[in-house]
């Protein structure tokens, strides 16, 4: 039991040697680790954390920018679409106008051609009628000459004719 007391006493009695060495080593370790380990490690970790935070923030920013860009694109796209529609409409109108103009032009041309054709026909017809009239007149005169010749060829016939004419004249 005596030995146990000695051992127990040495258990709770701090040895001066270990106190000295621990103080020395601990302070040395504190200084050395503080300078060569904790300082670079902590600053590196901090730097990285800041880097990560910055990266996250810039990613968020990029996301927002993208969103803005997207909406801007949308606007541009809508604008382009309306512009395209307007252009198409314009083109269609131009086409219609062109067709109409062509139609009108063609019609007027055809009318003009028809009118001139009609005029020519009338002229030809008139010319033909005139000529026919002249020929008929000539023929009539020739016939009349022939008839007169025959009618007045004898005296009898001249007397009959005068009587006839006298009959018609009567005495009024």
């Amino acid at each position: 039991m005596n030995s146990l007391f000695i051992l127990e006493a040495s258990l709770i009695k701090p040895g001066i040697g270990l106190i000295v060495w621990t103080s020395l080593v601990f302070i040395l370790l504190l200084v050395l680790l503080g300078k060569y380990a904790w300082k670079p490690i902590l600053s590196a970790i901090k730097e990285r954390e800041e880097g990560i935070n910055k990266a996250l923030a810039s990613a968020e920013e990029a996301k927002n920018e993208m969103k803005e860009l997207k909406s801007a694109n949308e606007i541009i796209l809508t604008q382009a679409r309306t512009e395209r529609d307007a252009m198409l409409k314009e083109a269609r109108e131009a086409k219609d106008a062109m067709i109409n103009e062509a139609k009108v032009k063609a019609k007027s041309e055809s009318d003009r051609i028809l009118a001139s054709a009609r005029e020519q026909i009338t002229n030809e017809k008139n010319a033909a009628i005139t000529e026919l009239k002249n020929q008929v007149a000539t023929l009539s005169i020739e016939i009349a000459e022939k008839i007169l010749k025959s009618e007045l060829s004898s005296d009898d016939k001249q007397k009959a004719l005068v009587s006839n004419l006298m009959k018609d004249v009567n005495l009024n």
Partner: protein
Amino acid sequence: MGKRTLFLVVVLIISGLFSGKISASEPTEHSRAEQDSIHAASNHAPAEHGQTKNGKVDITAVAFEHILDSHYWHFWGEGHDAVALPLPCIIYSNKAGFKFFSSGVFHHGHESYGNYSLVNEEIVSSDPEEKVTDLSITKNVMQLFISAALLFWLFTSIAKAYKTTGVTSAPKGKQSFFEPLITFVRDDIAKDNIGAKSGKFTPYLLTVFFLILINNVLGMIPIGANLTGNIAFTFVLAACTLIITNINGNKGYWMHILLPPVPKALYPMMIPLEILGIFTKPFALMIRLFANMTAGHIIVISLIGLIFYFETLWISPVSVAFTLFIDVLECLVAVLQAYIFTLLTAQFIGAAVADHHHEEGHGSEEHAAH
């Protein structure tokens, strides 16, 4: 390299347990006779290597051999088969000044060296006038050196890794294992308890945390020294905490101690109590770590000791099962105690440097009352 180290440790554990078991449970006639002759010659107070004269194992002595400091680093084996590394002795005598020699000169306490002899791991002089201060590199001091060197190597190599790979790449290897621990100490221990001024104290807290942690772990290895279960070691760490807390104590902290917010009539009682409180807090730190680590080792040795106490191998399954359980528990305790010591240190510092707004409020109220 890690595998080889692990293998070595396992071999050491197994061989240590084995040799201990064989020589203790079935002592040969030869070794018994030897032990007897040794004891007769040296007439030692504690039993040599835990064996009494009748061959029975003195478990108490074995337990204390494991938890106390020693001038040898005892690996395994008993008596003449013992494999132990003699360590350097440094003593300061008020007569002879500094003296340096190897602890091998004492032949495990059987022989004396000049005036000096080793009694109960204490170097004493035969001259009653001579006072000897023992500054030897004992087993604990040796482990302290080893652990400090290990920590220095470990963390400078990690620091170098940050420098070479830069801060933009993900941490690798050691770096990725220790970085969470470092950030845990920095954020959850230092920042949470000290606040804005924590940066100044983080290196101290990190050093304390890792020094305690590594020694708690080394202490769990059977041949390791019980450094964190030594009151001298915990005393120094607690003293450092005491000093750091008080030299950084601000006005509010000292006001709270010297002019506590209580009626003036209570000052004669409160002020001594508050002053006592300065010392009791680190004292509790010192005792807590010491007691927890020592208790863990005693429990393990006691459980193994059951085999020798009952002198039967049949109890060994119980011993082994319970030892395994306690060892796993001790793994937790090793981390937990390092955490608790660091956490409480941070809290003490935090209380000393915090802005005591409510304290000032009390003060102005008192002024108004007078």
